[in-house]
């Protein structure tokens, strides 16, 4: 076994990726706030404001309510650790650092685990508002995942039929993509699934219609109500990372093309160029799903949101998946 290529390179790569993605995702938050402010005819904060906020929160006093138990403190750290681990399975312009057969399961599992830890921390705080927020988050979580999971498994299964090295792996998107199937029916299906993924992404990062668990005016930031100081900083960073990762999935499925091939690059420089180009694509996806969506909509009630996710997004996912799978089945 070669220790250097199996352990040192992946760890160094993951650390580098983590440093870059944290910065990029926090900068995106700043760009998002600025863009939304311009849409609302405000001036808006400086683009680096989320980074200033993070640094300031990290240096502030952390207050622990005396009703809280140890999970309250552990949850933000576990959530961030999960997000970092998830980065190793995220397609970011090139194959994920750790990719193997069926790692899509790990990806979905870890992504859900972040929300789960947030819920756990909120429930452990002993605050009634946090408990309402946790209940809302849990309801939203179980409603948004089925549509996405159905769609992603169908796409991976269909791409697997085109011939790939490791089926059901995140790396398959860089060998064949959904548009290469080529039939008109699958094209329509892919467009429908793009809509499904946009809805899923919006509910995953909780903007616009789906800003329900954190509803500031209703339940005073819900899940985050008791967090302060360092723990709040960690949760904010986790939220930014999660947004980047979830958008990365959408980009990898629907717009996986890199540009390093055009410049004739290879090795590390190719990876860096692809990562930067991927980040640009992530920003474009997030601009549509986050900035524009939250500027033109308000928040729904939790019952309406769950209805929407099951009756609209899940139905669309079913139709899109059938259209894509149709010709193989028949």
């Amino acid at each position, binding site marked *: 076994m070669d220790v250097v290529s199996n352990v040192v390179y992946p760890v160094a790569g993951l650390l580098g990726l983590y440093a870059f993605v944290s910065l990029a995702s926090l900068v995106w938050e700043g760009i998002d706030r600025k863009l939304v402010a311009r849409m609302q005819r405000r001036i808006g904060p400086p683009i680096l404001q989320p980074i200033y906020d993070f640094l300031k929160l990290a240096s502030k006093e952390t207050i622990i309510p005396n009703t809280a138990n140890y999970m309250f403190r552990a949850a933000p750290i576990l959530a961030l650790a999960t997000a970092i681990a998830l980065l190793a399975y995220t397609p970011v312009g090139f194959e994920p650092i750790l990719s193997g057969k069926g790692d899509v399961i790990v990806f979905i599992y870890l992504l859900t685990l972040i929300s789960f830890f947030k819920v756990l921390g909120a429930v452990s705080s002993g605050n009634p508002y946090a408990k309402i927020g946790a209940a809302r988050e849990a309801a939203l979580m179980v409603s948004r995942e089925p549509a996405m999971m159905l769609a992603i498994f169908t796409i991976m299964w269909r791409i697997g039929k085109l011939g790939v090295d490791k089926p059901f792996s995140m790396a398959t998107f860089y060998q064949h993509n959904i548009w290469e199937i080529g039939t008109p029916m699958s094209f329509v299906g892919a467009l429908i699934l793009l809509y499904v993924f946009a809805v899923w992404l919006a509910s995953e990062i909780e903007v616009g219609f789906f800003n329900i668990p954190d509803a500031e005016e209703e339940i005073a930031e819900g899940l985050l109500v008791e967090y302060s100081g360092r723990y709040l900083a960690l949760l904010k960073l986790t939220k930014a990372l999660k947004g980047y990762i979830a958008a990365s999935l959408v980009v990898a499925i629907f717009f996986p093309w890199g540009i390093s091939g055009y410049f004739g690059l290879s090795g590390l420089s190719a990876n860096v160029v692809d990562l930067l180009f991927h980040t640009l694509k992530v920003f474009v996806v997030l601009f549509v799903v986050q900035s524009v969506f939250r500027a033109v909509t*308000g*928040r729904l009630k939790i019952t309406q949101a769950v209805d929407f996710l099951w009756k609209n997004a899940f139905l669309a996912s079913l139709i899109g998946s059938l259209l894509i799978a149709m010709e193989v089945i028949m």
Partner: protein
Amino acid sequence: MTEKVEYWVKIPFGPIHPGLEEPEKFILTLDGERIVDVDVKLGYNLRGIQWIALRRNYIQIMYLAERMCGICSFSHNHTYTRAVEEAGNIEVPERAEYIRVIIGELERIHSHLLNLGVLAHNIGYDTLLHLTWLAREKVMDTLEAVSGNRVNYSMVTIGGVRRDIDEKKRRVIEEMIKYYKEAFPQIEEAFLHDPTIEARFRDTAVISKRVALEQGAVGPTGRGSGIRDDARWSEGLGVYPDLGIKPVMPQDVTGEKPRGDVFDRMAVRIGELWQSLELIEHALDAMPDGPIKTFPKDNVLYAKLRLMVDGEGIGRYEAPRGELVHYVRGKKGSDKPLRWKPREPTFPNLFSVAKGVIGDQMADFVVAVASIDPCLSCTDRVAVVQDGKKKILTEKDLLKASIKKTREINPEIKGDPSPLGVGCVR
């Protein structure tokens, strides 16, 4: 065997909460997200205004009344003035009445735009909040140009108004009317035809006509529930009948039967924006020339009030939130009123909405409270009843009680509790 267990929780909503503009407290009993019961606790914004007022003379109270609330500062001042005028049989020149109409309607536009923005903010629709409040800046600027102040206009005095609307100010108002003729259709479009707003506001916090009548709901809250009432119309207030006032009902705006939900209350406000604009336009055209006040100098007014005010007077006015009533009782020879009692529209509206929101979701609560446009600083009163007897607390008693409470909360507190100086000597 299978007995239904109900997991009800009581949670406090307020006194300080991001969804509330002012300190007010509700104890909500929740079954999951469903609201089972609402208990309204008032009294977090008491400033003892009536107590202060009984130690001021008639002219000073005008400025005190104006500062009871930041938004309906004209309404309070105006209604108090009307009550004193009734008690003293003081005639008001016609031009002054027209100027009062103009300022009152300008204030209504600014208050309603503010409330529409707050409603949008409460469902997380911040774009609409910022655009509505951007439109509101125009009326604030106009009010500043006309009266000199953005908030406390000080336009009204007993027996007239303090400042005239000359040709220059008239041009400013006409320019504002032109601006709003373009801006209001956009606001109307955004609020009446947006799917998110429709989903959140329709059939939320329904106050049926019966509940509204029982609780005495007034203003847009009452009209949204189908009660055809407007103090300017039913009282025939001032020159309003000449200007063709009539109550705006939700069916005039939405074209549907009133359901008494948040959407209907919002629709009434949008209708009133248009109505106010029309009233201002008519008032500017119909305004006759003439004096603007009965007594040109304040010292003359002070001396006259001493002699003229005898007995009681009641002023009624339709404030942006509903019908406002001021009661004044004076005695010949004294420059202070014996009793001054304002009655605010928020009080009945708050209890009707607390009834209406039962059965809805937790998410609806903040929207429901904002939909009546509560003004707690006007509403809060206190009366101490001990053993069936009314008790008057002096400043010393209150100080003692607050020291006791502080010790209760934090026994280790250091510092000298005795008051600095002599306290309030009056």
